[in-house]
């Protein structure tokens, strides 16, 4: 899980705008891709709705592990929905999360970029591992770990590039602190990898038509 848990005001208005604009451009590309590609059929909408519901519900649940962490199911969104649908789902989840007080409104743009990294990386890894004919469980689980690892790197990059207002800490100290945080995050990524591995394996047995390949 990588989610920037900073309140509004931590980033300057300039950086909040930059991340928002980038996120809007990417979401526009996702929508364009969805319309130009296979199109949006009722099956895709239903799967997207279910992924949205599951991701939102899980995203808000703080687990009693390492002092408090949460899963976000972004790799599962990538594996089942693909990056285009996934981009729209993470935008909705982040907006609804901010609406109930989990994360700042200004952070939505940056968080969408971080979550889209996870969605795309997990999707790409899952697809790539498909060529090696390894089991679905290992394929999905490895895709989750790689996706969440890259998501944490994206999160660190966004914070280091933006800087945080009102702190005296140097970028090096911040990198050290954020690396420890990312390390802790990867603990819950292990749980998420095993859970997602089982979910995708089950879907493959019960409803193989729901998997994109």
């Amino acid at each position, binding site marked *: 899980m990588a989610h920037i*848990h900073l309140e509004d005001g931590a980033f300057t208005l300039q950086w909040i705008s930059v991340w928002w604009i980038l996120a809007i451009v990417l979401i526009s590309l996702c929508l364009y891709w969805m319309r130009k590609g296979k199109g949006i059929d009722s099956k895709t909408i239903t799967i997207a709705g279910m992924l949205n519901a599951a991701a939102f519900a899980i995203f808000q649940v703080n687990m009693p592990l*390492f*002092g408090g962490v949460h899963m976000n199911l972004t790799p599962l969104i990538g594996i089942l929905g693909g990056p285009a649908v996934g981009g729209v789902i993470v935008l909705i989840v982040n907006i609804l999360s901010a609406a109930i007080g989990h994360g700042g409104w200004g952070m939505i743009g940056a968080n969408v970029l971080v979550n889209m990294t996870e969605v795309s990386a997990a999707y790409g890894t899952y697809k790539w591992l498909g060529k090696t004919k390894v089991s679905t469980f290992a394929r999905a689980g490895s895709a989750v770990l790689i996706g969440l690892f890259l998501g944490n790197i994206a999160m660190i990059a966004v914070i280091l590039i933006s800087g945080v207002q009102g702190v005296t800490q140097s970028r090096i100290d911040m990198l050290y602190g954020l690396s420890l945080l990312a390390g802790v995050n990867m603990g819950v990524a292990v749980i998420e990898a095993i859970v997602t591995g089982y979910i995708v394996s089950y879907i493959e047995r019960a409803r193989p038509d729901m998997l994109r390949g």
Partner: protein
Amino acid sequence: MFKINDKRGLMIFGVLILVFLTLSIAAYMTSGHMGIEERFNNAVGIHADSEEEGSSGIFGFNIEGNLVSYAIIVFAFIIICAVLYIRSKL
């Protein structure tokens, strides 16, 4: 039984799990026990006066943000998904 590729895939996955779990425990031991917001503030150097003590929840699991809004949104999602599922005949 497992095929060779399955075994190799599971082994790679197992190694990844071990590596990330070790890193995670090492990071936790170094940074100490703290909540998610506190861990973030500490990482970037924000000195919050005192973190609000949230409810202990059920078996330590609790909801971030407003619980009532969360319940309303999840309920709305369940209704929407049920309608979509019936209409799409998935």
